[in-house]
């Protein structure tokens, strides 16, 4: 047969290969499915993942026992989960009398969100903690579950800190926000529902900046020719107007 014609050397080599291959096949056949079947691996991984302990209970869990939840629903912190400030509370919800969540009262805690940072979106209330009642604890004046300013803010900078500070560094520093913006009183109470207004015509800026204006220190341009198709703020940033 073919095997008889095969040189002896090749036969020996093939014998070794067959042995190795047989061992490999045997190992594969003998091994239990738990080691070889991918689907079983995936299933057991998913089960292990799902079995991880839950540490944050979720906002609704607090509602059952704590009145503050309802209070929070009506205020500016309504989108804040209880656990955002009080920390993970799943354990507390399972053993309410023995394990208590934390009760952060230090200024640094509130400052974590409310310290002024120019990268924060406009309309988010920010303060300079060093200047804003440094000797008091925040919760003395502000109810954390229904935070309101102690007085209706007189200054727009309470919520528009970045714009206010930008304006402070600009030639418009002397201007009040209300010089240009119409601010209904309701805006201070329900800022998202009632918005402040902006001027609608070039002639508004012309009150100071046109050639026949009385304001001596304001730079003048000829309103008939300067940027005639555009509203002024389509090129100039009113809170930090560019100066040549």
């Amino acid at each position: 047969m073919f095997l008889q014609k095969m040189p002896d050397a090749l036969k020996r080599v093939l014998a070794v290969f067959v042995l190795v291959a047989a061992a490999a096949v045997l190992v594969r056949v003998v091994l239990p499915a738990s080691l070889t079947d991918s689907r079983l691996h995936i299933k057991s991984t998913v089960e292990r993942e799902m079995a991880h302990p839950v540490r944050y209970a979720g906002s609704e869990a607090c509602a059952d026992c704590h009145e503050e939840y309802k209070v929070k629903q009506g205020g500016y912190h309504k989108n804040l989960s209880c656990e955002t400030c009080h920390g993970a509370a799943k354990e507390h919800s399972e053993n309410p009398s023995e394990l208590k969540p934390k009760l952060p009262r230090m200024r640094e805690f509130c400052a974590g969100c409310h310290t002024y940072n120019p990268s924060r979106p406009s309309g988010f209330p920010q303060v300079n903690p060093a200047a804003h009642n440094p000797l008091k604890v925040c919760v003395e004046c502000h109810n954390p579950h229904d935070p309101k300013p102690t007085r209706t803010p007189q200054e727009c900078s309470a919520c528009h800190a970045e714009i206010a500070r930008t304006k402070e560094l600009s030639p418009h520093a002397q201007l009040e926000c209300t010089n240009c913006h119409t601010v209904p009183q309701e805006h201070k109470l329900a800022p998202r529902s009632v918005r402040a207004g902006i001027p609608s015509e070039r002639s508004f800026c012309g009150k100071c900046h046109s050639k026949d204006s009385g304001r001596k220190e304001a730079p003048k341009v000829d309103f008939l020719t300067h940027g005639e198709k555009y509203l002024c703020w389509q090129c100039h940033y009113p809170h930090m107007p560019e100066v040549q």
Partner: protein
Amino acid sequence: MNSPLTEKLFDLLKQVTGYIYPNEIEVHWGILVVVYPYLTGLVAGAFILASLVKVFNVKEVQPAYRLAMLTALSFLLIAPLPLLLHLGHPVRSYEIFLNPNFTSAMAMFGFVYAWYLMVVLILEIWFTYRKDLIVWSQGETGLMRWVHRAVALYSTDISDKAVEFDKKMVKGITIIGIPSAFLLHGYVGFIFGSIKANPWWSSVLMPIVFLFSAIVSGIALVLFLYMVITPLRKEKIDIKCVDKMASFLFYAVIVDFSLEFLDFIHRLYESEESINILSDLVMNKLFISLGVLQVLLGMLLPLGMMVAIRLFKFEEELRKLLYFVSAILIQIGIFATRWNVVIGGQMFSKSFRGLTAYKMDIGGMEGFLMTLVLLSLPFIVLSILIKVLPPWEKPAKGTTEGGTMERSVIG
């Protein structure tokens, strides 16, 4: 928590410039992953050199043929070590054989390695040495006799017909072996080249560049070993063999250099988004390892020397000196190449906005000392193999296979 690691990472933070993603501070593929492609590159290169003799009938290189094969084998045996040491869970490494994910180039490692080791290298060495093993064992006693007989698989046929068959097998295996060697080292290049997340690695040329730098380093290594071992055996260096090896080295270096130069020009010309951070990387973090070690010392200088040899037709002693120096420089250069690819690719952030640093430990699993050990182990294995399977034993009377003695220099 793991304090030494944390301390090290806090230290590394100080060397970060610009912005890196926070998880990028830890460099994941360190010196061990530099050593692995270096070792497999030498395997592929030494084998390609050996294949020149058997497939392309370059008879001048015959004296170095068996040495090249044994070199390839010793480096291949040590090659998995850096990988095992690097894995977080080396004990689970059998999973690569049991449950390979076929979309992963890395999963190919187990199969390509096993194929190359068993079907190419060991088989070819076996057929090369089979007759000599039988002949030697007939004249020996004790342990060596037993070892030689066992390695020969207890075969006894040394007829001309059997020897002819052996030679045919060697040629056939070498023919399969060449694409296998390309695969063995090319897949490593593909591991890097297929990562679209990393613009320093992601390139069609990566497997090709890896392969050609492997060929360069492999030929240089065999050249170096031949020039070191032959005088140690108190034999004369066959200058024709050395000249021939050096000329193949020369061609390989030219191709390798052209490929890397092409990659460089291409990147600059296309000027994609990553060009700024990569230029920053090359000029600042990789200036020494790339500019000086890889290009100047590892490629231009040896290239210059070999061009000079051709132009000025230096005499034998000067040629040997220049080949020797070139071989060493090339090893340094190719090691630097691997470093620049592996470590360099992790020195810049995928945000393209920052650079970080790599600090190699002295001790420990991924340390400098371990690297030295891993780089010297193949030579230890090689010396054992040379003892058991001497490449240059004087052949017994009446045979034509074997060492340098009676084989005439091609003229």
